């Protein structure tokens, strides 16, 4: 049966048409699902209006490992396979979930990318909960929180440890033993995780977020590197038995796995292969630190990418100022591609001949996703965009630490378009055009009217379009899409 994204409310309305099924109100339908046992009716009513039913055929992928997603799923029927991609195995099946189970909780809870691939094993029906609904239920329903917490740790660790390079080759039984010994730890932005000169007793593996590795040199805090998910730090002090050689600070909200020194040493004795890999990493890091001492450009690049959040982005816009002819066609193209509201401002931080214009860097852990209205969401490929739930309140403008969400005034309409619209009004004034009825009701919207028709906007890298307008419309190829690491090359 195809459900075509119907909400429970809509489904119940259809059922009511059959006289014998009149008693099936939306709330009663949800009460039949074990996941909602004991949940209060007010929350169930909200769920019935926002959660949607989905149907999948066998072999279909619900979501892929590595995609960004913020929806939660409850299995109403059928079964799914949970698999991960490892170095040895492109599809290692970790578990099969039956009807009544749930998955996808890590996305909305951590804003992290999906840690596994979910594929249907047979005809499957799912109930999809959007992020803001799931977080409301998680916060307000103790029963749901308990159910989620019970599986969170086990699922998080088993999939995450497999993704980390040094542990990916370990046998399953060793991973299970390791899961009992590690601790899940969370840090807020700017927290000091380890401090240079302190005693070191544990190794940390970054699960999500970014950390900055820095040392004090000649009274100056010098950044050595940034590490993101899948990387580890703290190994030098544990292996060599020395004091901490660097300070590690959380650049964003960071979730990490901590492994105590004794357990880690035991693991190294059991698996000498891991010891060799770690020693190779230590040598490489020491070499990088020495090279960095002489490379002023690289030091400056690290400072800029950290301070302005560029380290979080995989791709970002950069302008080559030796090619830019200041024609502003990039901004014009952005404006006319987005209903006359440009998202790009052609000014920003400068690095050599490159300028990073004010545009969204689609952070790995975006602060703007904390929007309480669900006005900002993330595409599976990681692009952050405004949704229909945005009410133009501007809270995200203040929340973005890099000033990349803007108030934008509209560009004037094309003169020819104005003329065409006037002619249309005169010719078609007696003809009423009927609008198609939408199948699903839109969420209620209280649009905050701003002075001068200004709107809150951000760059969405032209999501859904075949090309990025500012790059496509630059006559001298000055506007480019670069990896932060390529910025050094561009700046020379």
């Amino acid at each position, binding site marked *: 049966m195809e459900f075509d994204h119907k909400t429970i409310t809509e489904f119940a309305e259809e059922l009511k048409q059959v006289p014998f099924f009149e008693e099936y109100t939306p709330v009663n339908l949800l009460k039949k699902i074990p996941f909602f046992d004991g949940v209060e009716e007010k929350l169930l009513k909200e769920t019935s209006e926002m959660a949607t039913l989905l149907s999948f055929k066998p072999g279909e992928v619900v979501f892929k490992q590595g995609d960004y997603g913020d929806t939660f799923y409850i299995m109403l029927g059928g079964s799914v396979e949970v698999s991960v991609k490892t170095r040895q195995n492109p599809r290692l099946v970790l578990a099969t979930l039956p009807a009544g189970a749930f998955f996808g909780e890590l996305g909305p809870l951590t804003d992290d990318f999906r840690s596994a691939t979910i594929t249907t094993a047979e005809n499957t029906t799912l109930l999809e909960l959007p992020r803001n609904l799931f977080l409301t239920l998680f916060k307000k329903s103790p029963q749901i929180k308990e159910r989620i917490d019970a599986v969170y740790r086990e699922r998080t660790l088993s999939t995450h440890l497999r993704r980390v390079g040094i542990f990916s080759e370990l046998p399953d039984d060793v991973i299970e033993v390791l899961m009992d010994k590690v601790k899940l730890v969370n840090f807020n932005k700017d927290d000091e995780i380890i401090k240079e000169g302190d005693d070191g007793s544990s190794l940390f593996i970054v699960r999500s977020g970014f950390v900055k590795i820095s040392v004090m040199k000649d009274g100056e805090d010098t950044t050595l590197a940034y590490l993101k998910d899948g990387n580890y730090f703290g190994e030098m002090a544990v292996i060599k038995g020395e004091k901490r050689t660097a300070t590690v600070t959380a650049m964003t909200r960071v979730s990490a796995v901590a492994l105590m020194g004794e357990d880690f040493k035991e693991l190294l004795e059991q698996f000498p292969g891991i010891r060799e890999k770690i020693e190779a990493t230590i040598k490489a890091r020491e070499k990088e630190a020495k090279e960095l001492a002489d490379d002023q450009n690289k030091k400056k690049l690290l400072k800029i990418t950290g301070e302005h959040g560029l380290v979080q982005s995989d791709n970002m816009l950069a302008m080559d*100022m*030796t*090619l*830019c*002819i*200041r*024609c502003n*066609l990039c901004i*014009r*193209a*952005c*404006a*006319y*591609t987005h209903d006359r509201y440009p998202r790009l*401002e*052609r*000014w*920003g*931080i*400068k690095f050599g*001949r490159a*300028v990073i214009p004010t545009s969204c860097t689609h952070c790995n852990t975006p602060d703007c996703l904390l929007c309480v209205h669900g006005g900002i969401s993330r595409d599976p*490929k990681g*692009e952050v965009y405004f949704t229909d739930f945005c009410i133009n309140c501007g809270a995200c403008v203040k929340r973005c630490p890099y000033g990349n969400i803007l108030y934008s005034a509209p560009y004037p309409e094309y003169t020819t378009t104005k003329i065409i619209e006037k002619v249309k009004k005169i010719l078609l004034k007696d003809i009423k055009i009927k609008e198609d009825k939408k199948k699903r009701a839109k969420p209620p919207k209280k649009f905050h009217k701003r002075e001068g028709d200004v709107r809150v906007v951000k760059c969405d*890298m032209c999501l*859904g*379009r*075949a*090309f*990025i*307008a500012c*790059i*496509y*419309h*630059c*006559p*001298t*190829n*000055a*506007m*480019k*899409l*670069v990896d932060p690491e390529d910025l050094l090359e561009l700046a020379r």
Partner: protein
Amino acid sequence: MPLRDLRIYQGEPSRKEIIGWPATGIALALGIPVVYLILIPESLKGGDTWLGILLGSYALFFMVVAFLYSWRRARPRFKLDKLSNWLYAHIWLGISAIGIVLVHSDFQFEFGLATWAFITFVLSALSGAVGMFIFKYLPPSISGESETYLTPEEVMKEMDEVVKGIEKLLKTLKAPEDEDEAKKAAQEIAERERKLEALKVHLESEWRQQAPLEAWLYFHIPVSVLAFVLCVAHAASIFYYH
């Protein structure tokens, strides 16, 4: 494959731009005259033969395509090819049209509409070459060493903010609570005035440096329009003569 992965346009010049259009332009501009001089018999030479008219039509067609660049530039929603490809087509088809016109006229010029059309077209091409030179060599020299880059519009916005700050402080200065407050306000006003002066100098310097990037267009565009009008008039005049 997701739509985004098909987007190969990441800001690097394409092969069409680096090789395709230059090769096409040079081949047409030089190749056609060489072929004309070596291979074409005398009976077919001249602007009023069928070959001459055909070549004239090609030249006019290339001019129309080159002219379309300004239309494309004003249409960001138009999807057919990157703007930089259109610019290369504009440059190289325009240059090749000169070679074709020389051949169309059999390298002979008399005082009249046709010659004026050719002269204005060559002037348009030469001013375009000046523009290319300016676009190539001016931006690197005005990039500057500052930590941030501000457009003139942003500089003006900042100046507005500074002026608003000064106005607020002047109100405080008119009715200060005590002497210290007045002194502090006066010092801040002096500082902001210095900042305003620095911004003004920066703005003037930016405008002066960036002016050539637009100035050449005040010659190139009118001359190109005139050339186009004269070429169309010349093309229409053959119906009058024939």
